[in-house]
């Protein structure tokens, strides 16, 4: 038998009222795989990540993580909607980085990185600080550890946010357009950190991005979303080099025109 996928979306649907945002999504992501999600605005890319992070509930289907249900739990051999305790147990494997950073403004970079390890994982402060120091070093911000978010540039804030997410040792990291809110000259430093993370850590990564160059170079697979469905997916060379679907071609063409 082959290894369990790290993440499995099994016929997952998401609706807001009458609006179907995701329509029967099926997507498997292997351990350590780097998957990029691209597609036009409003196609449901963010929603995919938010459902996996349990920031949104789902209307249909099941999301699995390492062979265990995330959105559901087993009761008498049947799957029932998960309770919070179950969600928290599985969610511990997932971390997320947001477009708008969402650092805690009343805490320094260091405090941002040790908060959850101490309160959630119950780590000793000294251990949490040692780990956070390593991570802040990895993102190149050792000197800024005592700065508050408002004293950091957007790129620096986003790098702290990445360190903060890593401090919880997730197996899966989600990135939602993490460079979209940045000035162009700051995009590179954040992408460099993500590259490093991909190399040094055995992380499964799922990222929504508009950086086509980065998606092409970094990902093992690219999924093109359109209107709540995966319209086309494949290795970056194929999807970018020889897109089969007309919509993919149109989208890539439009993006290249703009970029």
């Amino acid at each position: 038998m082959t290894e369990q996928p790290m993440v499995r979306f099994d016929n997952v649907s998401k609706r807001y009222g009458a609006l179907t945002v995701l329509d029967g999504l099926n997507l498997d992501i292997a351990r350590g795989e780097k998957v990029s999600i691209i597609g036009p605005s409003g196609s449901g890319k963010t929603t995919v990540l938010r459902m996996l992070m349990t920031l949104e509930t789902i209307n249909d289907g099941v999301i699995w993580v390492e062979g265990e249900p995330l959105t559901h739990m087993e009761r008498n051999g049947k799957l029932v909607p998960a309770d919070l305790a179950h969600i928290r147990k599985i969610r511990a494997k997932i971390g997320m980085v947001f477009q708008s950073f969402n650092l805690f403004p009343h805490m320094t970079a260091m405090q941002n990185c040790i908060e959850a390890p101490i309160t959630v994982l119950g780590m000793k402060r000294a251990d949490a600080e040692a780990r956070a120091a390593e991570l802040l070093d990895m993102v190149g911000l050792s000197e800024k550890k005592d700065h508050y978010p408002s004293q950091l540039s957007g790129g620096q804030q986003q790098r702290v946010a990445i360190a903060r997410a890593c401090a919880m040792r997730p197996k899966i990291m989600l990135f939602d357009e993490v460079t979209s809110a940045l000035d162009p000259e700051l995009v590179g430093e954040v992408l460099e950190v993500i590259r490093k993370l991909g190399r040094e850590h055995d992380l499964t990564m799922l990222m929504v991005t508009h950086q086509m160059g980065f998606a092409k170079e970094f990902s093992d697979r690219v999924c093109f979303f359109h209107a709540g469905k995966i319209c086309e997916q494949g290795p970056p060379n194929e999807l970018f080099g020889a897109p089969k679907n007309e919509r993919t071609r149109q989208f890539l063409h439009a993006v290249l025109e703009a970029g």
Partner: protein
Amino acid sequence: MGIRTLVAMLVVALVVIGALATQESYKVFMPGLLQGAVLTIEIAILGSLLAIVMGVLAALARMYGPAPLKWLATVYVEIFRGTSALVQLFWLFFVLPQFGVTLNAFLVAVLALGLNVGAYGSEVVRGAIQSVARGQWEASTALNMSRPQMLRRIILPQAFVAMIPPWGNLFIELLKSTALVSLITLSDLAFKAQQMNQNTFKTIPIFTLVLLMYLAMSLVVTIGMRLLERRASLGLARGKAA
């Protein structure tokens, strides 16, 4: 108004009280009025503490509590906001004993004013919590915090800053409502003033002193809240200049 101006006003008020107190026609009233002021301050402080506790508990219960708690908190807030503090004082002091529960006047004063202001305070707490950016909840969720952990460590510290000015107003409201307790046999500052006035008809000195005393007390509250606000927003505002 800047803190400096407020402090200057407070100093002026205190100096004027001091100067008047040396005058023969004012001097005689000082011991009685100060006695009343002490009781007023005691009730105001204890009432404010109760208001904070009730405000936070009621807000959390209404926002995150299980259905029965939610219901209970809503009933509490609506009753104490929807009826006057005076009626609440009377009810606790004159009606409750008919049901076999007799509380002393001081306790009734603290309870009634604290519960009354706490009901308004719960709305302040609720508004401040809702004013914290949604991204903060989401980031805490992504870090797998529990609801209580998020509230305690992330949301409430940020909401706290937004709560300080409206709580300052409520504390001053509470301070002023303490004058009502004279109606349930307590000898607070307002009561002492009325009593002395009835006995001596020295209206001008008595009520001038009383006015200045209330003003001084509310200035202390305002200045205290300003300092607290400045301190609490330090982390948030630090480098807003950066």
